[in-house]
């Protein structure tokens, strides 16, 4: 029997309303997304700008309104939570944002930033707060003395450590990492990734890891879902997705990662088109206009392809996934 997942999302839908020059516009940001995250697992949502990965994360955290679907957290209906119940729930799920230059209040000291959650959720008072902050800073590789500094005095990597300490302050069990290492330099990125993996294992955290780069998630994720235009086009255990990618978009994303050795250079045919090009989607498969698959035909446009199982837990939303592509 498979254990009950900690987070279970079914058919999640989110629409954004915008208005420019008085013309109301509705954009479908997330269009029927489903996934489960087991306790202690790290689930990666990968995709390019505008694919809906961040919107999905915000919906999971109840930071934005959803227009459809269900979400259960540890058996409870996440969308039914209101007021005090929701407020108490918030300390179980925390987030680390991409840009530590904008996500930390520049006027607050590191101590105030990390300690705020402790005070709001009444987890510590008086001198306990400072003691907890000191512990947290050490846990993320900073010095207790850094509590008196302000974000401007810190490097990007140090700021991201502060953001992680702030998220951990309320002792959450679920952590959303929204491009948490994307803005960092490579050497810092590797250090912060290692820190995240260490903290996850030590604290038994469950993680939702949002990234635009497949190379970054391979090391940390237990399972990966690739999103395109608001939908998951492929998902599966990390090894399956990297070893036997089935969706043409997943293959193109893997192919687009630069080589790591100049001797591996090869002629490549980059995928045409833009992920962030606006405009209306064709009926059927949203990837159709960019799809390089040789077997693509009118059948792809007949209906939006459903995710179907290729192997144990490996799902793909492409009707031609089994057909030879080259």
């Amino acid at each position, binding site marked *: 029997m498979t254990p009950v997942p900690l987070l279970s999302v079914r058919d999640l839908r989110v629409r954004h309303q915008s208005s420019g020059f008085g013309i109301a516009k509705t954009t479908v940001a997330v269009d029927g997304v489903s996934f489960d995250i087991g306790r202690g697992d790290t689930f990666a949502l990968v995709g*390019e*700008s505008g694919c809906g990965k961040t919107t999905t994360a915000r919906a999971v955290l109840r930071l934005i309104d959803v227009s459809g679907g269900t979400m259960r957290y540890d058996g409870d209906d996440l969308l039914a939570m209101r007021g005090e119940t929701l407020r108490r729930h918030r300390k179980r799920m925390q987030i680390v944002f991409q840009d530590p230059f904008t996500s930390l209040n520049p006027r607050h000291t590191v101590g105030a930033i990390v300690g705020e959650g402790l005070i709001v959720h009444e987890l510590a008072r008086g001198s306990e707060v400072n003691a907890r902050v000191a512990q947290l800073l050490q846990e993320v590789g900073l010095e207790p003395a850094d509590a008196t500094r302000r974000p401007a005095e810190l490097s*990007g990597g140090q700021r991201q450590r502060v953001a992680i300490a702030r998220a951990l302050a309320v002792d959450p069990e679920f952590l959303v990492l929204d491009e948490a290492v994307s803005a960092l*330099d*490579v*050497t*810092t*990125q*590797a*250090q912060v990734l290692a820190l995240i993996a260490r903290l996850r294992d030590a604290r038994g955290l469950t993680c939702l890891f949002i990234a*635009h*780069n*497949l*190379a*970054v998630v*391979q090391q940390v994720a237990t399972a990966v879902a690739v999103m395109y235009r608001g939908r998951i086009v492929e998902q599966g255990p990390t090894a399956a997705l*990297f*070893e036997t990618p089935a969706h043409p978009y997943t293959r*193109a*994303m*893997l*192919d*687009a*990662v*630069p*080589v*790591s*050795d*100049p*001797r*591996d*250079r090869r002629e*490549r045919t*980059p*995928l*045409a088109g*833009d*992920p*962030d*090009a606006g405009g209306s989607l064709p009926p059927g498969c949203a990837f159709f206009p960019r799809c390089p698959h040789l077997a693509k035909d009118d059948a792809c446009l007949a209906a939006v392809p459903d995710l179907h199982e290729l192997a144990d837990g490996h799902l793909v939303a492409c009707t031609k996934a089994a057909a030879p592509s080259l």
Partner: protein
Amino acid sequence: MTPLLSVENLRVTYAGRDADRIAVDDISFTVEPGEIVALVGESGSGKTATGLAIMGILSPNARVAPGGAIRFEGRDLLATPEKELRDLRGRRISMVFQEPAAALNPVMRVGDQVAEVALVHGERDRHAARSRAVEMLVRVGLADAERQYRSYPHELSGGMRQRVMLAIALLLKPALVIADEPTSALDVTVQAQVLSLLLDLQRESQTAVLFITHDLGVVAETCSRALVMRAGAIVEAASVDDLFHAPKHPYTRDLLAAMPRIVSSR
């Protein structure tokens, strides 16, 4: 053969509130005609300041220390009057920036921004300039170039805007392009498109490229030589093959070890 570009003992300092900050600390290197050289480093390593110094467009609070030289096609750019530099920029040497949204003029049609390069450098006939611009837009992959000529930058995607930047930089087939993280702000599949386009254009026009980047994958993919910068200094200069297979400086090894890569057991 004399190098196309020869940077000798370049030092750049930025005036600070208390003390001057050294951004580039006595670096020397050369770029041969037609080659692609990577200038690799992390934030604050001085790689962008080096590029801006070569272009002569450092911010007013920056200063190039006396004693250095930037020789390009036989003349020292540091000793060249601004009027002559203006004639070189866009014609013999040009630059592509990381954020095309910030580098393009938001209230000018993108086609006119391409045509402007020809007009500034001696083209008298507006129609001729326009048709050269359209031709170049087609070359960089704007499918419907006649229509997209009339677009404003905000109407284009990030990848399209960077294609326009390449059109501007390469219209007059300059001898040297300084490309400062030209693909870093783009999505991965678009990054692959723009890189491949940059290489095609480079091959066609035999332009040398100084490729400023933090991404060793991009270096492995495109460059023949690399200069690794850290804290204003070049810590290693090597052929790309040596850099990846026999890195000498510990910092280069750290960078290589930290590089995100897809591990395949296939």
